[in-house]
């Protein structure tokens, strides 16, 4: 084999490996994978000049136009408390307390980051929908079929994830909510 052909083969393979590796890593990376707290992942440098190239790329793919931490915090979960992938054919109990922001809201998305079609057109359960007296201990049923109480429909899709937004966080976005204050995601059963 001629020398130039060896260089060409290795050079092209290197380029393909580099581009492919970056694309794979960004597509596989959880949004805000910089900190993992139980099933939730988050980061504090979205939208800032200090964000790493990797964070910037993942946020652009999964949460373009995210706000900086002092304005809003984003916590994302693709797993339940036991580390199993969130499955839209299963029933979950999501429980939490006061999250210390001006308002907060868990929202259900498909794995591409889009809202999931469902008959009642419910995509999130915001703090405004919960009476102030109940915000210290609230519960939401995440399931494919109607549930008593607050129901966040999954649409029966195979994989979904939850994004918890906390707007105007009480600490100005400087710290992460601890595990004890982030909602619990318990799988009850599957169809």
């Amino acid at each position: 084999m001629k020398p130039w052909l060896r260089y060409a083969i290795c050079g092209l393979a290197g380029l393909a490996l580099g581009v492919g590796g970056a694309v794979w890593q960004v597509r596989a990376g959880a949004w805000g994978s910089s900190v993992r707290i139980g099933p939730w992942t988050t980061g504090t440098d979205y939208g800032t000049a200090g964000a790493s190239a990797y964070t910037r790329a993942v946020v652009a793919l999964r949460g373009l136009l995210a706000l900086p931490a002092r304005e809003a915090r984003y916590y994302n979960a693709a797993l339940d408390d036991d580390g199993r992938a969130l499955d839209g054919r299963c029933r979950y109990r999501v429980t939490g307390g006061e999250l210390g922001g001006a308002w907060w809201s868990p929202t259900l998305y498909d794995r591409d980051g889009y809202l999931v079609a469902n008959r009642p057109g419910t995509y999130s359960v915001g703090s405004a929908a919960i009476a102030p007296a109940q915000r210290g201990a609230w519960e939401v049923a995440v399931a494919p079929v109607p549930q008593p109480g607050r129901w966040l429909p999954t649409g029966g899709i195979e994989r979904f994830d939850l994004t918890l937004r906390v707007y105007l966080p009480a600490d100005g976005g400087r710290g992460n909510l601890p595990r004890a204050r982030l909602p619990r995601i318990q799988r009850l059963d599957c169809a």
Partner: protein
Amino acid sequence: MMRRWLLPLLLGAVLAILAYKATLIATPRVLMTAALKRVERLGGVNVLRHPPMASAGARTIVRPSPDLAYSSCVFDLDGGPVMIEVAPVPAPYWSLSVFDARTDVAFVRNNRDSGGAPIRVALALAGQDVPAGMEAVRVEGARGIALIRVLVESRDRFAAIDRARRASRCGRL
């Protein structure tokens, strides 16, 4: 035999690292450019558009919040500064954020920051003149997007909010 492949393999490894880093750096700009084009197709440039609230069919921007009414303006500063004026709306939270083509946030202000008063800024490139008395927001790169977010606590309040937000403006100075 192996010695003949040593330098080519080294070249391949160096190119792999460079390509990896270049792809990561280019990704936000590529995705942002595509998003700006999608929004621009719906409403043009330097124009504020007020789409309905996000639903399952929404594909313009990934991961939209179903609790917010978004108004957006794709801006282009090549022809001069662009003014954004946000009118107060009857909602507990509203804000203006400005993103450059690299996805960095150039400006954020909410109704608490402004005391409920209108927010009025001029988006400009470094070196572009802004009228005296106007707050200038200097943006890296000519193109980007300004986004107004309004919290809609229940969908039956959307009609009143939608009427009020249409008093906001985006346009050339």
